[in-house]
């Protein structure tokens, strides 16, 4: 519950910032850079996610249905 409140507050604060979310087409140069993407290196992400899933209890969060791991 506290968590939802925290996220909602953060969201409201961000949305209140001047010009939040109103990026014009000619301002998108930097956003198009590969380093600004969230899926820049898929194999890197797969490998490290597999390592962490086998050594830690938490898994997932970024995509669905990636199949299970034999490491119960």
């Amino acid at each position, binding site marked *: 519950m506290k968590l939802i409140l925290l996220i909602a507050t953060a969201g409201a604060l961000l949305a209140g910032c001047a010009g939040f979310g109103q*990026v014009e087409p000619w301002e998108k140069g930097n956003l198009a850079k590969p*380093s600004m993407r969230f899926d820049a290196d898929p194999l890197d992400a797969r490998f490290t996610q597999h390592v962490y899933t086998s050594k830690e209890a938490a898994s997932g969060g970024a995509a669905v249905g990636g199949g299970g791991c034999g*490491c119960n």
Partner: protein
Amino acid sequence: MAATERIGGVFAATLLLPGLAAVSTVHAEEPPDQAEIALKYGYYRDWQPGLDRVKVQSPQLYLLTPFAGQWSLEAATVSDSVSGATPRMHTTRSGATPAMSDHRSATDVKVTRYFHRGSITLGGGYSGENDYVSHSQNVEGRWSTEDNNRTWIAGYGHSGDVIDNTGSGGSVENQHRQTRELMVGVTQAATANDVVQAFFTRSMGRGYFSDPYKDFDQRPDSRRASITLLRWNHHLEKYDATVRSSWRYYQDSFGIRSHTLAAEWVQPVGVWTITPGLRYYMQSAASFYYDPVTDAQGVPSSLLTRRYASNLEGYYSPDQRLSAFGAVTASIKVAYAFSEASSVDLKVEQYRQSSGLRFGGGSPYLDPFRASFVQFGVSHKF
């Protein structure tokens, strides 16, 4: 509401002219311009005091290609070779721990169809080891606003697993597990230099969750988890660098609550890119996790622990992965671009897990755990 798209004005009038609507709107997502093939070789090894190392060699192949105009195909396959010993009960030395050698093969394929304002992806995967097979299917849809500053995402995934170690002399035969996941999220271009992402996932699993190789391990037959993920990419004009940060909060019906905080600094230097990174992870123990039992001298005793465990009822597990601990990863990745189309990269990571690294302390009497992994990859667009 984005610029020049107010209904009733001059812009709206231009859309009535022949042929203008087609060139006047921005496509939300497009298939990749080029196909890409990538190879990566990963090497992992871990160790704990007094135990043999586990080593994993992991070659991976990746392919991404547009086809038929508005479609793309993405496929990846990995073939892990695992060797070494895995810890038995907790981490106390329990005599001879059998060496283990295993092989894992996994493939997944995704097909995406692109539309004017969004896209839909259908995917399927297979993962197999000598004691475990998993089949998965997933569907994901993305839809963007007219100004492309916000993209909504929703996804559903299902996986069916079969666990069976009778082939290697075990006693777990033909156990099943089904997991369903639902995810909703949004990606928002916040400013000319910021993109943020928020995802919420709910996962529901039913079936066999116990560890087939552990004695005195009895887990619930269902596991429900909620995961919140926030990501933020910020471009720094002054350094031409990008700072990528993320926070993931995970909680499940086993009683585990965990936080993952990660940050990376992507720094281009000519045709090189250097990316140092730091990750901090911490989790609470599962509600049914039990600590080792100590003897009169306060030293953990495997005999006393087994005696204690044999009298337990309900759910119980000594698995270190379900204990309370914290972990830190330090990483550095160096990439070199031969050309616009080809690049090579090397990433080295050091991981350390221990109960002492958790804020507020972790489960007692567990040895710290260390791992290092290296990835070497080449990628080519054509």
